[in-house]
């Protein structure tokens, strides 16, 4: 009996060590050769989830690269950003989306739910350390095991095919065609969630803190932003809580709020995403204020608000 248990344990140890060793080796190779170099040598980058992904048409904004990606939590963003900053000296300013839904507990799903972990973990596992991985393993052990095997396969294929180019796999502007805002607005039943009932994703916010710290450590200017959203967007219901967290956790980080940027319903894809028409309008405007020295202003938000007001007064369409 003892011999049997000894043999089983020994076999399992050999198997586990082989897997870990294989993972370490493949991760080392991938880290060594991974290429996050952005060809356009941008000065500004935008990271975040689908809101900035659909808002910043980087083909219209000089020196800016949109690296936002749908469904990406701060957790995975952190690993991506580290590599991007390390391999792109040209970057001076990092715009980080800080939107109402990014504080919610729901963001935990974006970190370890099967749909997300199976896609994101293989992409960034080579750049994670053990404590990062433990978060996934603790919260979704089955999903982690599955994504671990997917990551091994992905790394093996990358190495065999010598495909280490990440620059085209780390997000970008999303051209959204849909236009269903009118129907969504008509179907809204507004219900505000009381402040004391909101629960937040500590994990996601912890990684936002790490993103901010890393940027500061690398002497990159980091600015929190909120992309344009429709005034009927239900995510505003946690506004008080949202501002409270920002003021408490990130009091020294600059914050630019574009959420009230005036757009018509037809320029939204839905209540939280701009479609290509809205992105065109917003990106053109953003490019202009960036070129007009937005980042040199002492009170940037006041400058933005003035620009927004001026825009609203210049066009009656937005006064509705």
């Amino acid at each position, binding site marked *: *009996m003892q011999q049997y248990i000894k043999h089983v344990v020994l*076999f399992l140890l050999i198997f586990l060590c082989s897997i870990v060793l294989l993972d370490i080796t493949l991760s080392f190779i991938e880290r060594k050769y991974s290429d996050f170099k952005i060809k356009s040598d941008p000065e500004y980058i935008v990271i975040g989830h689908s809101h900035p992904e659909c808002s910043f048409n980087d083909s219209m904004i000089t020196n800016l690269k949109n690296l936002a990606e749908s469904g990406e939590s701060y957790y995975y963003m952190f690993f991506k950003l580290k590599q991007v900053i390390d391999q792109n000296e040209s970057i001076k300013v990092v715009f980080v989306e800080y939107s109402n839904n990014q504080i919610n507990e729901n963001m935990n799903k974006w970190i370890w739910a099967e749909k997300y972990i199976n896609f994101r973990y293989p992409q960034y596992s080579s750049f994670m350390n053990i404590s990062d991985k433990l978060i996934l393993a603790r919260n979704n052990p089955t999903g982690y*095991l*599955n994504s671990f095997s997917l990551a*091994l396969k992905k790394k093996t294929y990358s190495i065999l095919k010598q495909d280490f180019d990440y620059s085209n796999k780390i997000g970008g502007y999303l051209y959204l065609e849909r236009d269903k805002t009118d129907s969504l607005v008509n179907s809204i039943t507004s219900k505000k969630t009381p402040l004391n009932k909101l629960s937040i994703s500590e994990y996601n916010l912890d990684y936002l803190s790490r993103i901010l710290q890393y940027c500061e450590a690398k002497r990159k200017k980091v600015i929190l932003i909120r992309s344009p959203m429709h005034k009927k967007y239900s995510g505003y219901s946690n506004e008080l809580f949202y501002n409270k967290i920002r003021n408490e956790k990130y009091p020294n980080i600059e914050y630019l709020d574009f959420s009230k940027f005036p757009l018509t319903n037809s320029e939204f894809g839905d209540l939280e995403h701009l479609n290509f028409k809205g992105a065109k309008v917003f990106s053109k405007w953003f490019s202009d204020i960036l070129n007009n020295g937005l980042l040199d202003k002492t009170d940037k938000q006041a400058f933005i608000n003035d620009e927004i007001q001026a825009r609203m007064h210049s066009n009656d369409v937005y006064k509705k």
Partner: protein
Amino acid sequence: MLFNSIDFAIFLPVVFLLYWFFANRNLKFQNFIIVVSSYVFYGWWDWRFLSLILFSTILDYSIGYKLNKENHQTKRKILLWTSIIMNLGFLGFFKYYNFFLDNFIAAFSFFGTEVNTNSLNIILPVGISFYTFQTLSYTIDIYKRKLEPTKDLISFAAFVSFFPQLVAGPIERATHLLPQFYRKRTFEYSKAVDGMRQILWGLFKKIVIADNCSRYANMIFNNSDEYSGSTLVLGALFFTFQIYGDFSGYSDIAIGTSRLFGFNLKQNFAFPYFSRDMAEFWRRWHISLSTWFRDYLYIPLGGSRGNTWIKIRNTFIIFIISGFWHGANWTFIVWGTLNAIYFLPLLLTNNNRNNLKIVAQGKSLPTIRELSSMLLTFGLTAFAWIFFRAKNIDHAFSYISKIFSTSLFETPILHEEKKALIIIILVMLFVLTEWFGREEQYAISNIGYFEKRIYRWGLYLSICFLIFIFQGKQQEFIYFQF
């Protein structure tokens, strides 16, 4: 609790250590550990249905006890029928209530009468079809005086709820499994190693073959309108391997786990896809169910004795009931009927027992004739599985009619072709391993014959790597729903 889950990976070693270290000296304690762990295993899924198992256990234990004492034939019959009606009553209610209700309503509306009844939202208790048949075998065998009833309720409860085979078989006979609970088990190194090896192979079948094939089988069956005939053929083949990997994989894990605890369960699958005719296939596929139906239904009905019409009637009865056992859907009934049609010519021409030995025994390769017989049988089986997998009869017929269209000759098109190709290569590797291990109880049993540990462990490690690297998305075992 699924065999391929982390929960089970923790549960099994804990029960194993409790069983062999704390309960090793006492038979009753060993059986008690089995009962408790089995109830935990089953309750993990839904503890409410433990009451059904408990009720079935107490009912059949009491009836078995009384049956043995009773000599009056009418009273014995009443006792037997009480057991049958109660057990099948539960099965019928949970599994077939909505089916009969829906068909009842459809039949009335066909004759122009609208009947308003509400179907119930009934959850099917996992494994009810399996443990019901197992407990029935106990009372029937006592009635036939083939078995002495047990006085030990714990042993009987362990027999009914034995966790390795509780939810998806093999359906063990009381005459075979129950006496094993009367004897204290002692640990045997070789038996435990063999058990682990069979578990490993079962996991490979389930995780690598079944779960990966299911992805493409589901994709093709769920969107069959969009695919060409040739792709639909591929879909049927994916399902053919999925169901085999899934169910025989479960059986391997169940048998292997039982061996870890010192029990021997009967072989449930004997390489059925290498069968040379349908009669041989049914001697090799889900053996525990086929033999159950043979012994408790087919033979009491007269079996293959009697005139031609009796033979035809009995064959259809057994296959249709077997189909219906799988689920409350007309697709299963048609699947059973189709298999009866396959089987009948062999029975009527007395060719149903031509192929009793394993194909190409002692040889590496089959003859051309054997190969063509195997391919034909495999094709017929895969064709019948279309009914088994389809959502309903209409879906099955539209699937088949599209196969037999001109698009059959188009090149099959699949999403993620490279992944599909890898799965096809894995399936081919699997078929080859099964072929070379077909004279054993399970395909990789012969790894144990290697003298040097480094070879044995090297092969085990390779299988573990394949399981780890090529694991498909975790799926429930298909037979849980039966």
